């Protein structure tokens, strides 16, 4: 992808800093292309890993006859195969992602983040797909590793508009049958809504050997609830739903509730071995990515 295309979403400084990052999957995924990612299938790749004693059932062709000639015993050769990552970016464009000042709304931050990830992965010859959704799936671009595919992804992101209610649980349930191979699922959302259906869906994804990475994008107002005077809150997902109240009076309870919500999400992700990265829209994008990938490297 030409840099000029990515520059529509990222500043030059951000692009410079992104160049030093490497996206490394924590687990070996199947792929069609060689790359930096480790394959779980040993024995059929170019990079030798180890010898082990033959056991009935091993293919005859995997026996290392040279070793047999020296030792008169059957050993088979095992290879560590490097494969391409097959990643699917799930970007939430429901109504709640529309919160934030013009140009700095949550969905805009999510789009920037998705663009960065797509750029990095395609540069590593990984396959990247894109799914945009609200209460249901809006658009699906299947994973491709071709550089021209990035153009398609960016075009799709550029045309995304927020609206509708989010229902992550049903979205994941709908996405799951389309994932025929093991890979990386990257969710970029505020995760607002019922937590338990989301966690159940994550558990199902993990059961399908999908690695899941959740970027939770929040606005600082949602964390601090800084309103003072009487305010009418209008729901971004359900037009016509309004609440007139004294924000100072509910702030304490709201923050308690928010903390409970976040704790529940964190706990669920940890239990399902899902990485959760909480971001605010004022966070520098590249720093957020760097923190995440450092953590991924440590886990490797």
């Amino acid at each position: 992808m030409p840099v000029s295309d990515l520059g529509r979403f990222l500043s030059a400084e951000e692009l410079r800093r992104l160049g030093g990052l490497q996206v490394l999957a924590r687990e070996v995924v199947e792929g069609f292309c060689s790359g930096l990612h480790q394959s779980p299938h040993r024995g059929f790749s170019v990079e030798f890993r180890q010898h082990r004693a033959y056991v009935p059932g091993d293919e005859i062709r995997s026996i290392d006859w040279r070793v047999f000639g020296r030792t008169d015993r059957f050993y088979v050769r095992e290879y560590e195969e490097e494969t391409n990552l097959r990643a699917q970016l799930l970007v939430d464009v429901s109504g709640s992602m529309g919160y934030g000042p013009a140009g700095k709304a949550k969905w805009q931050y999510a789009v920037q983040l998705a663009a960065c990830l797509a750029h990095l992965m395609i540069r590593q010859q990984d396959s990247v797909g894109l799914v945009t959704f609200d209460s249901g799936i809006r658009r699906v671009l299947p994973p491709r590793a071709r550089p021209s595919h990035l153009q398609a992804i960016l075009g799709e992101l550029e045309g995304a508009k927020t609206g509708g209610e989010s229902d992550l649980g049903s979205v994941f349930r709908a996405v799951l049958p389309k994932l025929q191979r093991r890979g990386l699922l990257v969710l970029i959302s505020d995760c607002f809504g019922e937590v338990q259906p989301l966690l159940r869906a994550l558990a199902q994804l993990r059961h399908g050997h999908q690695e899941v990475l959740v970027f939770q994008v929040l606005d600082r107002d949602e964390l601090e609830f800084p309103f003072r005077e009487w305010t009418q809150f209008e729901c971004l997902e359900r037009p016509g739903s309004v609440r007139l109240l004294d924000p100072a009076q509910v702030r304490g309870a709201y923050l308690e509730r928010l903390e409970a919500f976040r704790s529940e999400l964190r706990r669920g992700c940890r239990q399902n071995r899902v990485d959760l990265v909480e971001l605010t829209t004022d966070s520098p994008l590249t720093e957020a990515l760097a923190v995440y990938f450092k953590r991924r490297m440590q886990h490797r």
Partner: protein
Amino acid sequence: MNFLNGTLLGGMVLGAVPLLIHLLHKRRFRVVPWGAMHLLDSVLKTNRRRMQLEQVLLLLIRIGIPLFLALAMARPVFKSGGMGVSGNEGLLLVVDHSYSMGAGERPGETLFDRARLEAQELTRTAPQGGVFQGVLLGEGGGILLDRPTHDPGRFLEALKRVTPSAGPADLAAGLQAAAGQLEKLREPVKSVVVLTDFQRASFGTADRAGVRTALDQLRGAGVDPAFVDLGARRGGSLHTDNVAVESVEFGSGLAGVGQKLQFRAAVRSYGETAHPDLGVAFRVDGVEKTVVRVNLGPGQTQQVVFEHVFESAGSHRVEVEGEGDGLAADNRFVACVPVLERVEVLLVNGEPSSQALRGETDFAEVALQPFRAGRMELADLLSARVVPVEKFSGAVLGKAAVVVLANVPKLSDPQLKDLEGFVKSGGGLMVWPGAKLDLDWYRGPFFRDGAGLLPLSFGEIQGEPRDAGRTVNVPPQRFEDSSLDFFNDPRNGSLGDAEIRVWHRLVPGKGGADPGKVLARLETGDPFLVGRNHGAGRVIMAATTLDADWNSFPLRPVYIPLLQRLVLGLASGGEPPRNLKVGATLTSFLPAKDAGRRFDIGLPEGGTAVVEAVARDGKAVLEFRGTRKPGFYTVSGPGLEPQHFAVNASRAESDLTRLSAGELEAFSRENGVRVFENAAAFRKLQRERRVGREIWRPILLGVLALLFGELWFQQRVTGSRVSVRGMEKGVLR
């Protein structure tokens, strides 16, 4: 409930301001498109009721603050019942001006000065148009003004002229006087305030029944008297140290020229302070003779003895004065000593004897001039001369001031005539019976049914002359006559020491003449000594003998002072006492010709009083009732040798100890009266009763409480009690 600043109640409309602000805020709101509505909804779902309640409470608090502030500024007064009566006030001040009120650390800071200040406060805070009257509570007290005044200045000026008296407080009398004055007040509101120091010496011994009666009288007039405790501790201790010259005693009360007289002064320290070098001065006729220094410990009494020889006859003034302290009234004790030239006594012996002490007048002769009998150089005041009956005549009377008839059978008519003339001209006569009396003569010409010299007739003889027979004596009794009041003090001897075996009943005649006054009685009730004035003189008759034939008086020590006092009493014509207590009536006997004349009485505080002598019992009597201050009073007039009278304050109030807190409470409880620390406290209660109790202070405190409550509630309602983790800028977690 009433309001002193009712117009400020209009400020209560400000209570609507918080409500308006609340409504305005609800109408003027900002609109925020919000994503995390599911969180808000869950918060509202579980907290809606609490939030509504908090909103209402906060709004009520905010409305309440201006409401109650306006209420407090309107100065509401709470009236609990119909106790108050409005209108002009008749204020009756009962001011303790007993001499303890003169106590204080410095001049101008005495308790009485404090009483004046409290009176000033009471008049200052009295409603316009009130009237004022005062009653003085101390010795010789009375009404302050002739009639109640509307002018507080005049009232205070009159009080300013009053100084603490020299006597104790008489609470019952003062309250009764107040009750009497209260009836004269016509104002619808009457107040009686007693300003006193609650000294234990006065209040501890107060006539409780009298106090209660007087209080009932006051309450009957619709007044609950209030007491203001002037001695209440107000940031300092009350002055209780005091040194008093409690008494000065000197022999028989009479002295002769050249006779050495001993004055025994008792000096006592009250309180806790020691006086290691206290000077006590002795003055005679205003001239300081000596100063003795004594070491007086706390609570101790010391005797100080002075001696003096008077060089001239007449009335002499003696003073004993301790060094000054906070209470001046008892620092000085004054005495008046009448000094006589030698008094000649003619003893008419009815039964002479050649044997020592067997003659009828032998014992009396010794008793009247004991120093001479003992061959001592000291001067006797009396000089006795003995004559047999047959030699008695007007010619032998000479300069005799007193004639004593001892067991004289009878006198001849010329002798009787001379004797009557002697008595009428002011001489003294003592008649002592015996076995040799011619009773017919005594009951006849000598008595003449009371018209003669004898006040009573000699009746039947009582008792047995034998030693083993039944005896009677003179029981303890109160002696009113100045001749015998010396024996009211047991230290001077007791007439009861002697036994009387035989005595005459002394009986009155039938003519209804003046039977005289019984000076002393026997235990049987029969008169022992009877006295009566006769002309300008005086006659005393006894019921038993002058010698030891019928009684043992001559064998007892009391015989000497008995005879001397009787003779001196006769010689002085029965002069009334010259040493008096404050408040006692000053009395002087003058020749009958002075009746109707006016005499000056010099007063101790300066100035003179003019008193007219009145005719009474054949002589002129001068009486003065204004002995309100201690010191010397001097009666003088044309042709009259100045007569001094010494007046001393009672020492009852020298002990400045106040009623203890418990005693004060008991006094208050028993009498149902309230005791205030000062006049302002009384006025405050009075105002509360009349107008009501101002309650702006508690309301203001309530406003403050609401302010703090609002602050706290605001914090509680809007304050963040949850810390949000990971709120720093950048990547969370």
